[in-house]
């Protein structure tokens, strides 16, 4: 019985994989897998840094499963490890993660649907809503491609991030400083590459530019997270109703 069930689930996963491949195309698949690889290595460093700061082995893993948001996790661990108040660490993490509220409204369409499993799809799908998944979704046109890009990126990132964190927690000091590999530049580069096609629309570019200036100008004075939220004021610079964020036809910006 259990074996039969397992065989079925493997067959099921294969067909899901094949469907995703055919919907996304090899190019976009490669792009998403590259991001997963890079984030997996950052996860490795998160696990290692947390444990070598003297925090328990299970903490980075629990954070990565329950919170699943890199910047907030690093911030949380940084505050707790330096003897800070856990309440302050939670508040700081929540502030950084507040951007997921507007993100949720922007990509809600990929989690929409009716029939069996509609609710569980929203419930599960929401948890893997990370910056990269949102950016990949926005870069795609068409319901099917947007949906496939969101799920592929969200689920693969969840797996690679958590695997990286577990490995890093056990490996300890093996990979501490991912800056040596320039991975700290990879995160903004990923988002930039995905967002740039949208910025070819003049009105959206103005709004993004205004928001960026606000965020950069306020960042030295405000706690992490707030400057990015303040950037939303930049939306006022939209001249006219924006076009559906300029998405490229054939997938990742090429």
């Amino acid at each position, binding site marked *: 019985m259990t074996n039969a069930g397992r065989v079925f689930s493997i067959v099921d996963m294969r067909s899901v994989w094949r469907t995703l491949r055919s919907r996304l195309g090899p190019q976009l698949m490669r792009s998403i897998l590259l991001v997963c690889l890079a984030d997996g290595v950052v996860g490795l460093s998160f696990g290692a840094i947390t444990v070598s700061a003297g925090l328990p082995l299970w903490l980075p893993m629990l954070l990565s499963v329950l919170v699943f948001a890199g910047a907030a996790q690093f911030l949380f661990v940084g505050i707790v490890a330096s003897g800070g108040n856990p309440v302050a660490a939670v508040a700081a993490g929540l502030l950084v993660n507040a951007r997921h509220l507007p993100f949720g409204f922007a990509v809600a369409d990929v989690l929409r649907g009716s029939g069996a499993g509609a609710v569980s799809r929203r419930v599960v799908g929401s948890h893997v809503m990370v910056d990269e998944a949102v950016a990949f979704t926005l870069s795609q046109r068409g319901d099917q491609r947007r949906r496939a890009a969101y799920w592929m990126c969200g689920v693969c990132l969840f797996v690679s991030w958590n695997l990286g964190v577990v490995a890093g927690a056990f490996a300890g000091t093996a990979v501490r400083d991912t800056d040596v590999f*320039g991975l700290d530049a990879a995160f*903004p580069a990923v988002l930039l590459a995905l967002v740039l096609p949208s910025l070819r629309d003049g009105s959206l570019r103005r709004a993004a530019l205004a928001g960026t200036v606000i965020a950069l100008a306020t960042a030295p004075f405000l706690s992490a997270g707030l400057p990015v939220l303040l950037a939303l004021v930049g939306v006022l610079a939209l001249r006219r109703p924006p076009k559906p964020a300029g998405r490229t036809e054939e997938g990742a910006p090429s």
Partner: protein
Amino acid sequence: MSGALTLVVATAVLGLGTYSFRVAGPLLRSRLHLSARMEQLMAACAVVLLAALVATSTVFDGDGFAGFARLGGVAVAGVLAWRRAPFVVVVVAAAATAAVLRLLGVP
């Protein structure tokens, strides 16, 4: 440093709060119908947020300046992406540029 129970509770609260932020949009939007214009505005908000995130995570690391190596890496990525280089090239070039700059002693 905080005890184990405190850390578990803190992690759970942060996880629950983060999840609430994430699930609010999908849950609410399945119930109320938004005009096409509102949907576009939501997408525009996400683009502005991501752009700001790119800028702040490029320039700042915690409270201080992130350094010229990271800035250089992201700048190279920006030029390549604007010239429609493949995604993989953009990302690898960003990391490689930052790594090489650091190797050369750029902070």
